[in-house]
């Protein structure tokens, strides 16, 4: 897990954490701070809503079940007041309907307890990136070092050399490129690339990654697709 803490590659974020469990909140806040982010903490829904309205945050992490005002209502009110700050729900309720409720309230991501901290960190950092991206223009080309992909023409080039990918491999790469510089967990990949919401017991995702890696990194000096031990994967230019 220490690997994830040290891997603070995303830009600094101001995060509002609304969680009534003191101990869990302290653990989350410490982890996020260790990763280089600024964290404010509210213990109930009303306080949380007040702080969200007053402060300027890059992301909200909201527990679904809160005293005074539940998490879903907090976010609904923020959205009604025009607040577009990306939000992640933490919940013990993980079924399809529960997720749908969370997304309908304006949530951008949904994490079911119990979860690994590395999963939470990766998802929060992925939210911050979403906000920083220019909301108007839809990006269709992504580049990391000499690796480029074009979403419209579905082409991939590395050092101007064309690389052929299977459709699923392309979607996998596209997702990683959209989150370049961030840690992407196996669960995030399974949810976003394959649209499944369960944990496979075997290493299915790892094998897909290693196939992709053999196509984009093999034969080049610098590997771009890296494994972050205990957390997931990332595509980045850094060493």
């Amino acid at each position, binding site marked *: *897990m220490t690997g994830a803490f040290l891997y603070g590659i995303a830009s600094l974020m101001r995060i509002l954490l609304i969680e009534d469990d003191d101990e869990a909140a302290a653990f989350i806040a410490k982890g996020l701070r260790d990763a280089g982010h600024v964290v404010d903490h509210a213990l109930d829904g009303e306080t949380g809503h007040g702080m969200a309205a007053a402060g300027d945050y890059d992301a909200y992490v909201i527990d679904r079940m809160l005293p005074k005002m539940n998490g879903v209502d907090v976010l609904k009110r923020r959205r009604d007041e025009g607040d577009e700050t990306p939000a992640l729900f933490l919940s013990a309720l*993980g*079924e*399809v*309907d529960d997720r749908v409720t969370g997304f309908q309230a304006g949530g951008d991501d949904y994490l*079911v307890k*119990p*979860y*690994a901290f590395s999963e939470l960190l990766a998802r929060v950092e992925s939210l911050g990136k979403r906000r920083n991206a220019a909301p108007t223009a839809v990006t269709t080309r992504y580049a990391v070092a000499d690796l480029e992909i074009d979403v419209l023409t579905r082409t991939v080039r590395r050092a101007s050399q064309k690389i052929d990918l299977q459709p*699923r491999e392309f979607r996998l790469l596209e997702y990683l490129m959209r989150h370049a510089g961030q840690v992407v967990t196996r669960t995030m990949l399974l949810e976003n690339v*394959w649209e*499944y*919401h*369960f*944990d*496979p*017991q*075997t*290493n*299915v995702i*790892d*094998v*897909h990654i*290693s*196939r992709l890696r053999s196509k984009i990194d093999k034969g080049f000096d610098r590997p771009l697709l890296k494994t972050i031990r205990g957390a997931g994967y990332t595509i980045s230019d850094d060493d």
Partner: protein
Amino acid sequence: MFRLLRTTSFQLTLLYMLLFAVAVGVLGLYLFRTTLGAVDDQIDNTIDKDMEVLAEIFAEKGEKTLLEELDDRSKWRDGGLYMLVRAPSGALLAGNLTALPPEALTADEDFFEFSYERDRVDEAGAVVGVESRRGRGKIRSFSTRTDDDAPFLVLTARDSSDRDLLSARLRTVIVQTAIAVVMTGLIVGLLFSRTLLRRVDAVNRTARAIRGGDLTRRIRITGGGGELENLAVNLNAMLDQIERLMTGMKEVSDNIAHDLRSPLTRIRNRLAEALDADDAVRDAALAAAQAEAERMISTFNALLSIARIESGEGAGVMEPIDVNSVVEEMAELYEPAAQDAGFHLSVKNKPAHPVQGSRALISQAVANLLDNALKYAEGGERIILSVGETPEGAVSLSVADDGPGVPDKDRDHVLQRYVRLEASRTTPGSGLGLSLVSAIARAHGARLYLKNALKSGRGLRVALVFPPAEAA
């Protein structure tokens, strides 16, 4: 008994009975009025006609003939009552009435009613006494054209005792009928309420017993059909579901206790070990504790999923699912992993009808079966994912491998929770994979089969057979 009187059905019966009694009363009154009216009319007509005939006799044939006629008529004993009186003196000239009734003096032209006495006669005609009877009649004064003074008074009447008797009898019949109706209503109502009360009591007794903690009790089904029976059947079905949920909940808590206690103990021991150790040992102990915690989390998640699916809550929306495409997608997801593990994963996809179900759950079941095949089919080379339809129209989805398979005696056993056959103790896993598949199968009304995949007895083939879709 008093409880019976307070039941809704009895009160309803009482109300109906009351309405019926009123209806009977009104009918009786009508019957009474018309019957007596007809009798009265007949009496009055007879009297008027008699009076007319007598007036004619007097006018045409004179006083003497009238006298004879009246004498004659007086002997008939047909209920006719007559009296001829000479006007000024009041002397009785003829007739079978012995005294002028006092009512006659004030009656003018109208009918009047009176009492009179007459001899009671036995069958042989001998006088045996006197009886008091009622009569109704008219009185007129007769005069000739030549004589302005009315020389005679003629009283014509009919005996009306029989009419009074009829009236009394009618009244009795009507009252008796009304009483009979009310009594019958009461008895039927009581019987009806008692039957109903008994059946409702049975429901109440069961409900009380269940509230008292005996969840196995059910309402007795008599087999008689009807809406009460229907209610009982539905209540029983509801109770079955509640019992299933309660049992499920108890199992989950038992399982959690069983499954989480040992890893928790291990974590505590590792942490204790880490407390007073040098850096290298501490790091190793912490890493082991962390790995243990990760395993606990995945076990916990699997347990929760099973519990949710079994309670019917996790199934979400059931919709027509194209199983062929689910299998294609899962094969695409698992193909690299299978190849990596030394298997050739192939798909035999025969067109099949859509299955009513949850895409997420069916996918998860296939994933678990593939996970199992990758983990346990050691020494195997092939994994075949197939979809097809049985001759009956049921859709079958199966995962087959050519690994060592599962011994016959362990077939049922492996479907239970936490069962991991001895041979697989060393591989990671919670032992919940097949239980989850089994729970998903139940949520879809599908059957789960475990068979040998090969004639040699090796290999395992796990099939999910979905019930044929209802003709849409």
